[in-house]
């Protein structure tokens, strides 16, 4: 038997990640600076870790209910209300998942009939397209533009909608561009969607990491509340990536059906991590604010660094990524990343990893120490100066 023939073509056709090869190179290098990983460099605040330890000491090592500890869901409901003005019933409208990624997968599998179209703005998180394909959907990509500050415009959305459109994914604050949607931007999108039978999956995992104004959830518009599934989690804001706790809030019918898949595939999110997450919501808001202020300073430092290196760099106002245009170096995204790693030992990620329209861009994360950022920016400037010279 040839195992390769046994693999589902849908899965086989999902391309391998373009980033992996850089990691292999990086692992062999000494004093390389990686600005490539999409996770906080902060360790989870101690009170949260301590709560996790305490829950183990108390012997809380069993399953929780499928939807997650009711205590955690209640805290999530409280948080969603005071932070974003969104009211959800913790018993019916909230599901705790293994990271926000699981919630994306569950939502798409619950909604998609093969052939349905899912609108995905790109560049964006790699999982949307993969999960859509696995669910049998046809991904319809909207290529976001640097001239629009990588925001989703009502015109572009309108153009992408057909009678087959089932779902629109709204991924803001955005990975990899750092773009946000202001209240006005969201209002434009609401106008397009309010009278249509299209479900919105709003991935708000970076909501806390918004550096100008307040994050606005599309679900906060009454006409959108029912048809929007809000996805969030603890990984980014609370530096809890390894704990794997995310959640989805939305219509009870959608949540209930997502829960069916969740209970067969996962049973429940790790109980221990759920207890830690309760502590995060109850007592860690100061830590979040401290981290956000620190990210904001690093953000300005990195944007300034890229601009001083002579690269076009729009001002990212969310998440922890900078997405400069490197076209002026005469290098492709891939070449830029590979040469930068080999010549200056700095790793950034090619924009193409997040969709074809990421060509000509790279993603660098400022979830790294100030010292690392200052040193990396020096090296990048040296690199750009050298290569620009070669191509003039």
């Amino acid at each position: 038997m040839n195992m390769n023939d046994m693999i589902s073509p849908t899965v086989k056709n999902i391309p391998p990640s373009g980033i992996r090869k850089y990691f292999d190179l990086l692992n062999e290098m000494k004093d390389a600076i990686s600005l490539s990983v999409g996770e906080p460099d902060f360790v989870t605040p101690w009170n949260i870790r301590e709560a996790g330890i305490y829950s183990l000491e108390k012997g809380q090592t069993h399953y929780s209910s499928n939807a997650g500890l009711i205590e955690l869901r209640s805290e999530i409901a409280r948080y969603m209300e005071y932070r974003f003005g969104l009211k959800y019933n913790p018993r019916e409208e909230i599901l705790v998942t293994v990271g926000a990624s699981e919630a994306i997968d569950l939502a798409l599998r619950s909604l998609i009939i093969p052939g349905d179209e899912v609108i995905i703005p790109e560049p964006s998180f790699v999982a949307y397209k993969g999960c859509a394909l696995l669910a049998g959907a046809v991904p319809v990509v909207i290529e976001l533009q640097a001239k629009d500050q990588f925001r989703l415009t009502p015109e572009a959305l309108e153009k992408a909608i057909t009678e087959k459109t089932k779902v629109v994914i709204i991924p803001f604050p955005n990975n990899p561009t750092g773009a946000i949607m202001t209240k006005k931007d969201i209002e434009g999108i609401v106008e397009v969607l309010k009278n249509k039978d299209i479900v919105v999956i709003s991935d708000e995992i970076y909501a806390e990491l918004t550096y100008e104004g307040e994050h606005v959830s599309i679900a906060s518009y009454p006409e959108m509340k029912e048809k929007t599934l809000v996805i969030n989690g603890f990984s980014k804001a609370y530096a809890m990536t390894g704990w794997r706790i995310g959640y989805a809030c939305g219509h009870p019918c959608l949540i209930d059906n997502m829960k069916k898949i969740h209970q067969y595939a996962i049973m429940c999110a790790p109980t221990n991590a759920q207890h830690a997450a309760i502590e995060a919501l109850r007592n860690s808001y100061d830590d979040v604010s401290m981290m956000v202020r620190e990210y904001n300073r690093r953000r300005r430092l990195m944007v300034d660094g890229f601009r001083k290196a002579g690269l076009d760099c729009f001002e990212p106002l969310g998440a922890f990524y900078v997405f400069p245009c490197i076209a002026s170096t005469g290098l492709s995204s891939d070449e830029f990343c590979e040469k930068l790693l080999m010549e200056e030992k700095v790793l950034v990620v090619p924009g193409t990893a997040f969709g074809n329209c990421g060509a000509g861009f790279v993603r660098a994360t400022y979830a790294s120490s100030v010292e690392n950022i200052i040193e990396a920016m020096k090296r990048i400037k040296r690199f750009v100066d050298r290569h620009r010279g070669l191509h003039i």
Partner: protein
Amino acid sequence: MEEILEVLENNSRLNCEEIAVMLGKSVEEVKDAIKKLEDEGVIVGYNTLINWEKTDREMVTALIEVKVTPQRGEGFDKVADRIYRFPEVKACYLMSGGFDLTVIVEGKSLKEVASFVAEKLAPLESVLSTSTHFVLKRYKDDGVIFEKKEKDDREAIVL
């Protein structure tokens, strides 16, 4: 401009240009603000935190609980002043509770600290009693954990 303090408290080696970029201010604004904070005595120094245990230098630290008689019109300040001016004294705090002053003293040896207490501190007129505790190991100082794992052992992940 309180954020300048947050930045400098964590890393006093950053220059004005870097701080200006980080805070989205002009270099002049940052320079003026720092000067003002220094003039007002908000910023009182720029020190380096050293783990002397990792060096060859012999050093002992003692925490001394001191009971004193406050002086009329001066309270505790005058007594404290007499004590903290000794260069051996690294820190001096007025306390609530069972004693009045915490005095942190550094010396090359146990003997040196002991003689400081016996010859300088205890004989002061207003000092009623002292109780000396020697530090055996410093785990954390000024918010910095000394034996910190520096290596980043995160595994590569695609996302």
